[in-house]
Each structure stands twice: as C-alpha cells, then as structure tokens.
C-alpha cells in the first residue's frame, strides 16, 4: 500500500500544528464558533447532538494492521471504546473532546492518517472496489489511480472552496462494486484505443433530496489525461454551479439543468486547454505510485484447498460463512474474506476497540497486513489463503465478527440517524436493529438471497436509501418518527432510483412490512431470480400490496 513521502508527511504534520493552534484559540475564546466552524470542518470535526464528532479518512478504504490498531487505540483512549465505519469508507468517532483533537490527529499522523477533506465543500475521500487488487474481473488495480486523485485533490487551491462537496469513485471492472453512478464523478477503467488505461467517465450522480444517477460524459479519457479531464469538470462546475442555494449547489443540479450535452461542451472547452498543460501525469510518477500497489508475494498454491473443503464438510456454520462471506480471488488458493459489522441487533458499521485490535492482528497474520473498509460498512481481509480461512473464521466468530450475512438482507447500510446526528429527522439504528431481528434467521436469509436494505434518518441520504433494493427513509411527522419505503433502487452498473411505494409507516411497522414484501418476492420469483430482478420484471406493485396489506398506514 501507499506510504507517505516527505511531502505527504510534512503536509499532514503542518496541518496538525495549524489545527492545534486553532483549537487552542477556540478553547481560550479567541475564536468564536462562527469563526472556528469552517476551520474545524476542514479537519473533519463536526458538532453533533451529544458531542464533537471526528471523521478520519481511510483513503480508498485501505488500511494496514498498524493503522487499524491505532484506530482502536484512539477509540479506547479518547472515545467510548468504539468507532463507526461510514458509507464513504471513513471512520467516525462520536465522543472526542475538542481539547483532545490535536493529540488524536498527532497520533493519526504517526501512522500516516488524517482527517483532512473528510468534510466541507471540497473533494472528499475517493472510494473504490473493496476487492481492488484481488478481484478476478478487474482490468487493473484501481488503487494507484485513486492515489493519483488523492494527491492531486489534497488541498488543491482551485478546489478548496467549491459550491458544495464533491465525491469521486473508481472501479476497474464491468461489475460496479463502488456505486460509481451515485457519485459526482464515477470513473470506470476501460481499455483505451491505444490499448492503454482509459476512463469511462460518469458525471452528475448524487443522492440527497434531489437524487440523480450519473450520466456518461466521456467513453474513454486516456489515463495520462485523467487529471486534466477531472480539472475540466470541476472548473466548469466551479464557474457555473449555483452558490445561492445549498440544495441546488451539487454538480448533479448543474448537469441536470444544462443537460449532459451542454455540460460536456463546457467541459470540453476547458479540457482542450488543460490537456496541453502540465496536468499530464508523468509516466515515471505513475510507475512510482503503482509500485506501492504491486501484488503481495503470493504462494504458488493449488486452486483448491483440502483444509477449506474439510471444514466446509465438517462444520455447517463454516460452510454457511464460506457461501456468503468468502469471495473468489484472482490468485489460485486465495480468497477475500468479508468481516461483517452487521450482527443481529448491532449497529451497522460499528466496531469496538478490541475488535479493531483483533482485525489488525488477523490482517497481519492472514492477509499481507492489509484490511479494507467497504462502503457497505463492513471490513474485508483481501488476500487470505483458502487454507487459513477456517482458522480465521474461528477467530472472527469468537469476536462476534463472523455473521455470515454479506449482501444478504440483514447486511443493512444505515446512517447514524437521530441517535447521533444533528441533521436527522428520525432514528435509523433502532429500525435497522428491528429488521435484523425480524429477518435474522439465516436459512431464511439465504433462501431470500441478495437484497440490500438501505436506511437513512433524513433526506440527506447518508444511508443511500434511494439506491437500496429496499430503501427506508426516516421522516418527521409533527414530532413523530415515520418511515417512507422505496423499492427497486440499485447502486451498481444497472443503477436506478427506488420508487416510493406509498405512505410512510410508524417505526414498529417497518420491519413487518418489509418482511411481507420479501415473502411476496418468494412467492412470485422465478427460478434463480434475485429480488431486484423480480422488482424489475414486475414493478413495485406486488411489493406495495404486500407492504400495505395489513399495515395501518397514515398520511
């Protein structure tokens, strides 16, 4: 994985010292909250319902054991013994004291981590396929390109005061495992005309109160011109995007109002100049960055593993785990293992300090010192020998990290909601917990197959409810929590926004209503048809009927 050079190290160190001074001035009263707020936001610090919240960047979701161990240490020493992984692959701490923040950021800097650009109107953490470098269907490892984007976008002077936040995701396979079309810019690595790396570029996706699926703006931008093209997109938006209304400031609004063709014309105008300038990525620099991502030294192993096969036969629980949480790897004899942060009755994305320490150990022992954060709020050990998976599973099981539900219906994506967030209208976590209890039977979950439920506590859509196969949105009805259900959303290469099925439901009705919709699916599906395929074939009506069959819905 990437290691800081002297520029990265100096930049992060200087930022810690600058923020230390700002915190001291705030604590002494020399800075008002209004003066301090934009400064703290530039360092990932929010003020939430109960406390300050610190969001730490996990660049494209990649961490070492030492970094994970440091995250555990921070949870233990400065917080309440846990952290929360987000849909941007970052980690949030819910309880740090303002006066501890400089010390926390110092400790993070020691392991090459920071909280820069995890908030504010700037380019946020670039995300990618959690199986990057391991998946057998990728054209190349997308992470070096994510690192190129990270270096280019970090404290970029032109893009430090954008109309609104800006998010980029990169994939390198046809299968979109990073929800790129829900992003301001989505990049898909394709083969260029010259056989080299090129980028199919999507622009104008986003969720929130006005959701849009990104549209294709360019079929194949040559790799060495990627930064020129991204700069052109951002410059066009920075010049033309609205700043008068926060709800209309994202690039999706500009793209939708101009139309993709007119927006492309604007971008091409800038690109024509920019591509002639020094934004071309030098081959030597790209090679240098790529060298940090060379595959680990895999052992030469047979495709199958006797230890794995024996464990599957001997232990039905391991067999279930292997069916759901172990994924194919490009290297024979290896696999990627999904560490579920979605136990029944748990908080999606939460992990304790002890669990983080264990995952750090397991990454070092079993996965070439690498662990990934998935946008689905799970962790992944990307490079595990099949031979080692039974032993790894036993350790995960003992720590409550082996719920065999990856991509199943209790693998729920949820924002923190009104239990923590000052923007929320309703709680998310208790509804996710009720769903996990109602739908927790593992035989049932496997019978139902892959279904993603996404849960947001307000229209800002941090839980990506618009693109959940089933989406749940918390709304406020005269001080009471109600939940609106959508069906048919999809975050992948067939990205779609879900359809609102009807009136919102009180919280206790949500889990039974969704259970009825899933039962209806089991009745009407054809052989081998996934839930989302059935919705696409039949539309939302059968599920609407099931959801409202017995529910006492209110306006």
């Amino acid at each position, binding site marked *: 994985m990437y290691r800081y050079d002297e520029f990265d190290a100096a930049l992060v160190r200087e930022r810690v010292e600058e923020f230390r001074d700002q915190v001291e001035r705030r604590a002494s009263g020399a800075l008002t909250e209004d003066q301090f707020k934009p400064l703290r936001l530039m360092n990932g610090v929010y003020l939430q319902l109960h406390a300050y919240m610190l969001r730490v960047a996990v660049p494209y979701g990649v961490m070492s054991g030492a970094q994970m161990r440091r995250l555990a240490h921070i949870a233990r020493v400065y917080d309440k*013994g846990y952290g929360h992984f987000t849909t941007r692959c970052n980690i949030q701490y819910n309880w740090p004291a303002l006066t501890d923040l400089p010390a926390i950021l110092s400790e993070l800097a020691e392991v090459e981590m920071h909280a820069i650009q995890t908030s504010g109107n700037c380019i946020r953490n670039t995300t990618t396929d959690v199986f990057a470098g391991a998946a057998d269907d990728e054209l190349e490892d997308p992470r070096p390109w994510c690192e190129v984007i990270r270096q280019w976008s970090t404290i970029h002077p032109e893009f430090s005061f954008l109309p609104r936040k800006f998010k980029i995701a990169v994939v390198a396979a046809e299968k979109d495992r990073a929800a790129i079309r829900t992003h301001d810019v989505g990049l898909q690595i394709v083969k260029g005309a010259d056989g080299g790396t090129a980028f199919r570029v999507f622009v104008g996706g986003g969720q929130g109160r006005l959701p849009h699926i990104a549209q294709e703006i360019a079929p194949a931008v040559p790799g060495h011109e990627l930064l020129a093209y991204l700069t052109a997109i951002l410059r066009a938006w920075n010049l033309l995007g609205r700043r008068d209304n926060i709800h209309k400031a994202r690039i999706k609004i500009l793209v939708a109002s101009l139309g993709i063709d007119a927006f492309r014309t604007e971008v091409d105008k800038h690109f024509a100049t920019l591509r002639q300038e020094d934004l071309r990525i030098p081959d030597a620099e790209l090679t240098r960055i790529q060298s940090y991502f060379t595959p680990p030294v895999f052992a030469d192993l047979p495709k199958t593993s006797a230890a794995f096969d024996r464990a599957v036969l001997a232990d039905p629980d391991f067999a279930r785990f292997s069916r759901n949480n172990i994924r194919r790897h490009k290297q024979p004899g290896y696999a990627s293992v999904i560490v579920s942060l979605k136990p029944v009755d748990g908080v999606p994305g939460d992990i304790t300090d002890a669990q983080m320490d264990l995952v750090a150990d397991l990454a070092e022992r079993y996965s070439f010192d690498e662990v990934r954060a998935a946008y689905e709020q799970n962790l992944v050990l990307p490079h595990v020998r099949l031979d080692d998976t039974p032993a790894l599973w036993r350790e995960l099981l003992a720590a409550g990290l082996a719920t065999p539900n990856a991509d199943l219906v209790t693998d729920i994506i949820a924002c923190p909601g009104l239990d923590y967030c000052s923007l929320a209208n309703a709680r998310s976590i208790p509804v996710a917990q009720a769903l996990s209890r109602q739908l927790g039977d593992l035989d049932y979950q496997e019978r139902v197959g892959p279904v993603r439920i996404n849960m947001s506590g307000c229209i800002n859509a941090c839980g990506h409810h618009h693109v959940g196969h089933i989406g749940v949105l918390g709304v406020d009805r005269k001080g009471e929590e109600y939940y609106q259900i959508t069906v048919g959303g999809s975050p992948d290469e067939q990205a779609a926004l879900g359809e609102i099925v009807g009136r919102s439901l009180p919280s206790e009705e949500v889990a039974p209503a969704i259970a009825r919709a899933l039962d209806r699916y089991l009745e009407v599906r054809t052989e081998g048809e996934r839930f989302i395929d059935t919705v696409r074939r039949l539309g939302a009506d059968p599920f609407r009927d099931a959801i409202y069959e017995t529910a006492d819905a209110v306006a």
Partner: protein
Amino acid sequence: MKIITANRLSDGRVIYVGEAGAVVDSLSAAAVFEPEAADAALAEAAAQPAVFVNPYLVEVTGHTPSGRDRLKETIRSAGPTVGNSLKHREPA
C-alpha cells in the same frame, strides 16, 4: 415554558442553564423560564461563548421537552437510545 440548552465548548457535551445561571448537564436540573425571562437568559448564555456553543431555547412542559423537536431534545438529554455508547459510562 422554556429551558436553555447548548453544547459545552470543551467537549461538546449537552448542557443546560440551571438555577442562578449555573451550568448543569442534566435536563432535570435545568431552570424553567417564562417566555419573556427566557430570552434574557438566552442572551446571558450567549454572552458566555467559552462555555455555551450555539445556545437555544427548548419548549418544555415541566422538565419534559414538548415542542416539535421533543424527540431530538429527549435523545440529546438522555444520550443515544441504542448502541455501543450505552456500555460505556461517562467519567464523572
């Protein structure tokens, strides 16, 4: 009736204006004001920026939040209703 709440500058924790302008961390210890007196008390809290961050008024009946934001204010006063923070006691 109204109470005054804010987040504490040093650690962000939820605080209230108590009797005689004291800073208290429990809603049950918050001073309850008539509407006219509430505005003056709010101004007093706002004049102490080294303690009170973003002070505002909350509608209450007795010591129970009663306005449109009653659920939010109840959660603010009692902490998250679920999750890992419940296992962890705040240092006194």
